[in-house]
């Protein structure tokens, strides 16, 4: 059981939220006698009968004077089972930004309903915001049960009503507790008024709720925060944002794309760490001397985040001074990096009460939520927020006022907008004289891909099948002339070649692609594009060892790379990721190019 649970509460004074928190603190004996004495004194001054527990939580004088809560207040209490950090936020729609802030780090959200009023707009809004911010566990506290005669029917009615609404949300754990914060029933102790309720009290539920598996322990993500140098020591310090990292693990440094291994992992104070996981703060030593700095990210070679500067995101607008307008410029803080960003488009504004999408909206003002397209000057290394809250969340800062003006959740790389539609053709694939396919040859430079590809094209044409060779080198003279050899450009190079191959295949031609295409994810995307279009795709891995390729060195490139004249050369200073499940693997000893080409063709006929 993780000893620390972060809970967000949202609700208005009318729902009895402050009373509930006061009750939780009071009945769990987290309230100190001097605090309680102050509350009793004030209650007496105001002519209240008993201590008004709502007074426990109101903080700033401005709030006391206005009788409202205007910010996020953090409360701490502990039971023998757990320590709780309660982020307490006001409930009105004009405090949506506070609710969002409180929910950003929460494991559990407590949502209050007045049993007399049922599931009202505010309650749905809180549930939606919690779901948007990735809070996986919701607890609906049906309060003021004393005012509905402790009615089981009323409780069930509210429960059904809310459960129906919650199917539209991304919530995997939903719990209902009937309570009376005023009298204390089912808050800390069960109480005798509702014998029909068989579940745990609220506090007991919070002590038990299982949140450990909410963390992402699969995708290794370590955003580099700070470089620690001391003598010969060079360590990359950061807080684990995902996955489990161990000494000896092969890691990839992004965005440079260099790979190396982890020599050691240290905790604070130089404690050796056998396995690092979120939310540990660690310092990692790498086996090779690479140029790594703040804003870079360490991951595993076969599991990288998206790297994109054209993004889709949900944002919540925080500024009362200026609204969000498409075309405006901001600074975007994401993990440990900061880059300039422009809001390119506003897709829609979301009504947080009805979840209605207003596509005619032209901007967002304070507390409004919408989906935007962002362009960043440098690509972000990110995961969708649903998969990882740390690598998927960001804030926007106004470069002039320096205020934090928005929080955002990345949903993914930009998808083609609605304005791009498919034009259907009059000719179906079956009506074409020939059926196409794509043969994709991947492997190191000098592995023999092109020789085999040339032979394949020759044979296919000889057999009367339309075929066309798409050679990586040749494509770089035209279609891909604007691309270099960075990881990003290589990814784009592969994407374009894949799209062209798909068009050829769709037209009835066998596209023979000969491309180093070093990244597994890029090749997998090309395969996915073909599969989605119902086109055959054959991945052939020309597995010639590096030493052999280097000995052949047909274009003299290895020699130049070794001499340092070429950088970003696959196999020398950037990684090659072999396919996990290729359709065919060819080794240099398997035969001459004609034999090898025949084997590929056999595969195609199958």
């Amino acid at each position, binding site marked *: 059981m993780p000893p620390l649970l972060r809970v967000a509460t949202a609700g208005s004074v009318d729902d009895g939220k402050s009373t509930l928190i006061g009750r939780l603190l009071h009945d769990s004996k987290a309230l*100190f006698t*001097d*605090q309680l004495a102050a509350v009793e004194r004030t209650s007496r001054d105001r002519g209240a009968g008993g201590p008004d527990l709502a007074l426990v939580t109101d903080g700033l004088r401005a709030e006391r004077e206005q009788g409202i809560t205007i910010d996020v207040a953090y409360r701490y209490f502990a039971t023998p089972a757990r320590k709780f950090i309660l982020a307490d936020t006001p409930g009105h729609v004009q405090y949506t930004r*506070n609710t*969002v802030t409180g929910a950003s*780090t929460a494991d559990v959200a407590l949502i209050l309903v007045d049993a007399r009023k049922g599931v009202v707009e505010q309650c749905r809004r809180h549930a939606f915001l919690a779901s948007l911010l990735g809070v996986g566990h919701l607890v609906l506290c049906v309060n003021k049960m004393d005012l509905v005669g402790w009615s089981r029917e009323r409780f069930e009615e509210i429960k059904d009503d809310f459960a129906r609404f919650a199917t539209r949300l991304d919530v995997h754990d939903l719990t209902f507790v009937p309570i009376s914060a005023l009298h204390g029933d089912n808050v800390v102790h069960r109480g005798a008024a509702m014998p029909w309720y068989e579940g745990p009290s609220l506090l007991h539920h919070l002590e038990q709720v299982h949140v450990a598996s909410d963390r992402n322990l699969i995708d290794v993500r370590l955003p580099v925060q700070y470089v620690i140098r*001391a003598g010969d020591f060079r360590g990359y310090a950061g807080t684990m944002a995902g996955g489990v990292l161990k000494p000896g693990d092969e890691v990839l440094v992004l965005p440079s794309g260099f790979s190396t291994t982890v020599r050691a992992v240290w905790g604070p*104070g130089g404690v050796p760490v056998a396995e690092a996981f979120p939310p540990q703060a660690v310092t990692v030593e790498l086996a090779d001397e690479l140029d790594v700095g703040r804003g870079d990210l360490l991951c595993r070679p076969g599991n990288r985040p998206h790297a994109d500067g054209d993004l889709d995101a949900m944002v919540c607008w925080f500024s009362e001074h200026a609204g969000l307008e498409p075309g405006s410029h901001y600074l975007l803080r994401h993990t440990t990096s900061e880059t300039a960003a422009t809001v390119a488009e506003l897709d829609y504004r979301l009504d947080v009460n009805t979840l209605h999408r207003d596509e005619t909206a032209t901007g967002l003002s304070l507390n409004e939520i919408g989906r935007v397209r962002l362009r960043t000057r440098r690509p972000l290394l990110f995961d969708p927020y649903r998969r990882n809250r740390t690598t998927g969340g960001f*804030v926007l800062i106004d470069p002039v006022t320096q205020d934090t003006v928005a929080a955002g959740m990345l949903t993914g790389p930009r998808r083609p907008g609605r304005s791009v539609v498919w034009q259907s053709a009059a000719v179906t694939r079956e009506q074409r004289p020939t059926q196409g396919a794509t043969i994709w040859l991947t492997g190191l430079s000098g592995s023999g891909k092109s020789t085999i590809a040339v032979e394949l094209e020759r044979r296919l044409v000889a057999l009367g099948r339309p075929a066309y060779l798409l050679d990586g080198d040749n494509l770089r003279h035209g279609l891909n002339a604007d691309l270099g050899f960075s990881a990003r450009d290589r990814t784009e190079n592969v994407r374009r070649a894949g799209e062209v191959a798909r068009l050829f295949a769709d037209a009835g031609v066998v596209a023979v692609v000969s491309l180093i295409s070093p990244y597994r994810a890029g090749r997998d995307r090309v395969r996915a594009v073909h599969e989605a279009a119902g086109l055959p795709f054959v991945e052939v891995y020309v597995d010639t060892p590096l030493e052999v390729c280097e000995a052949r060195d047909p274009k003299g490139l290895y020699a130049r790379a070794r001499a340092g004249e070429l950088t970003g050369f696959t196999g020398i200073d950037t990684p090659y990721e072999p396919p996990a499940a290729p359709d065919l693997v060819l080794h240099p000893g398997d035969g001459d190019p004609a034999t090898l080409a025949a084997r590929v063709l056999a595969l195609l006929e199958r």
Partner: protein
Amino acid sequence: MTGYELSQSGVLEAEAVHVFREVAATFERPVLLFSGGKDSVVMLHVAVRAFWPAPLPFPVLHVDTGHNFDEVLEFRDRAVRELGVRLLVGRVQDDLDAGRVVEERGRGASRNRLQTVTLLRMIREHSFDAVFGGARRDEEKARAKERVFSFRDEFGQWDPRRQRPELWNLYNGRHRKGEHIRVFPLSNWTELDVWSYIAAERIALPSLYFAHRRRVFQRDGMLLACSRHLAPEAGEEPYEAVVRFRTVGDATCTGCVESPAATPEEVVAEVAASRVTERGATRADDRISEAGMEDRKKEGYF
């Protein structure tokens, strides 16, 4: 039950380490407030661990009221020597001598409020842009809403309306020249967390924090120590008792409690069972008014 879980103090330490590194990476001239009090001792301990094996990349600053317990000053000097950190001292006395502030007079007078002027002077003189403080959100109601990165304007003042939303672990420390950010790495720690950490890490503290015999007297329901800075007045009968301090501030206004707890473990047990907050029990300065802390924070107090 799955593996890969950090202890409670592990989580809190990781959070604080993240904050220290974030500041070291993004600010030009940070400084850490170090009084020898337990929160600042814990804060310094975590800071040193955050940058291992490199030395602490910023100095520490003591705002000296001149009304210190002797044990605390000795401890301060020993601690900075052993940890190899650079200590700066800002003296309230210098501001009194220069006429920038005037000593409070009468019963209950203290130099606590005067510290603010000295702190802001030091920040200005050294162009500090980030100032680490050991404040915790559980200490006082007004602090429950304090940010981890708390923005201060060019006059060192805290404006509740200019505080920035803090989401996830993304902190916005941007500021203009002359403005600065107060940073509170221990925001989410409670008194019990601090003591548990002290016990687990075997962190040395001034002897004042543990049970010892001392001449004390009662005033306004608090137990104050007789010292060269504070003497009982007529009707306040001094007596000897076994006491310890829960906080150490200005000797003129920091009270102690009767306690037999002589080790960190015993203090942990005592704190866990305590029914009175540390400030409620022992800080006359916080009792001035209900909104005492909020007013003082606006002036730039830590």
